[in-house]
């Protein structure tokens, strides 16, 4: 089993295609939608976690391409240098997916990597340069 993170860029007018349905049914993949920015007749963007056998993932992505939809694999990851973090919370102000949030019991920062969209907004908003991108 393998897990990848991918963003699909739908050209305008194509957003009605049932892509995720086919990925699940025809290619036996487990899909988790992390972020969706889709409106009719406009360009759309979908960020997915895809889990499955390597071959199935490959076939699935080929299918996506055949439908005229571009995809981009996330190769980067966000690294939280926890030891240097002062838990101010400034990064939580910009995180669109709640991957960064404050633990209300002790007001420490928590980072849920699974939810991260690798949008990199936190990298610049951290006043201590504690969030960074690894390639």
């Amino acid at each position, binding site marked *: 089993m393998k897990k990848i993170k991918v963003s699909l860029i739908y050209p305008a007018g194509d957003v009605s295609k049932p892509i995720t349905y086919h990925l699940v049914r025809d290619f036996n993949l487990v899909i988790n939608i992390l972020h969706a920015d889709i409106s009719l007749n406009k360009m759309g963007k979908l960020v997915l976690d895809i889990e499955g056998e390597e071959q199935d993932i490959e076939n699935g992505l080929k299918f996506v391409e055949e439908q005229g939809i571009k995809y981009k694999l996330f190769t980067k990851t966000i690294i939280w240098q926890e030891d240097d973090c002062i838990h101010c919370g400034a990064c*939580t102000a910009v995180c669109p997916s709640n991957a960064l949030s404050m633990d209300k019991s002790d007001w420490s920062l928590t980072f849920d990597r699974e939810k991260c969209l690798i949008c990199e907004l936190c990298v610049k908003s951290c006043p201590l340069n504690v969030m960074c991108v690894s390639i």
Partner: protein
Amino acid sequence: MGYKSFDEINEKIRAGKAVVVTADEIIDIVEEKGLKQAAKEIDVVTTATFGPMCSSGMFINFGHSDPPIRMGKVWLNDVPAYAGIAAVDAYIGATELSETKGMEYGGAHVIEDLISGKDIKLYAESYGTDCYPLKEITTYINKNNINQAFMFNPRNAYQNYNAATNSSEKILYTYMGTLLPQMGNITYSTSGQLSPLLNDPNYRTIGIGTRVFIGGAQGYVAWEGTQHNPEQNRGENGVPVGSSGTLALIGDIKKMDRRFIRAAVYEKYGISMFVGIGIPIPVLDEEILKYTTVRDSEIFTNIYDYSVQKRSRPVIKKVSYAELRSGSVEINGKIISTAPMSSLKKAREIAELLKQQIRTGEFLLTQPVSNIPRENRMSSLDVRGESNEKD
């Protein structure tokens, strides 16, 4: 009824018998025991804050070189310091930018590096005089080979502060962090019910000469802070709604610890410095104790629209810290998420540490030599000609 004095409290501290609790803990204690009983039992309440405080900086005396130089212009790691004082004294402000690295590195970083024990490059220029012939010097300094290095922060420990949002269409980069368009978020600062001046709203015990915890060292309140604005609107409980009182603080850099002083860079705004401050409040009487029981739900501030680039920005909503801390605030039916800018976790750590230091006799209290003003209206800067001042 059993009022205590500073001396009596210090006697108890010296004897290791003082009862010290944090401003978070006192709330439940008073609720349980009642004000009268708690005032008898509790001697000191500790408060703290750890937030970005731009109005900070350091005085430094380098010692004399041979031949000596009257430093006219000084740079520390390429960050300009102000040297229009005596021959080898300078002041470096936290927000000053490096001339080579720009917004990446500034005065606050120089201070943090010095505290960490790193070598700092000193470059100074002079016009040369009979007694100070040298015209230029390049050398390295660190905290062990300079005379004095003390923080002098003109405006710290703001008694309450605004919350911020942005109603415009574009993203805003501010000292209140990144504000997303269309009121995409709300940011706020201060440690609320743990914050020093919110626990002594009328400055009865915190005044000039009060010993404080600053950046890991013991320092003092030197004066009222700049923009000290005690006449801010106050609630029925005496707590100001929005930014009001401030403190000028002083402390020995050589004794500070990087855990409690950190340089900060705000995207497209500039440099600031997180300063860890802890202030003990002696329980001299019931009234003082009562003020320390203030809760987040009783402290209010205004959310301002930072997209309006004017001195007086429109107030979007008045909210309590309990609402801000809940993670979201409702504005016109829309749920907007909130984010803190100052670290409550670190503030709690400081309040706890100060509590331990007082309990073990390491930290004694001082009685203020003078109060900071309770009346003082803030002036604004108007653009005018030489002779047309308005009242």
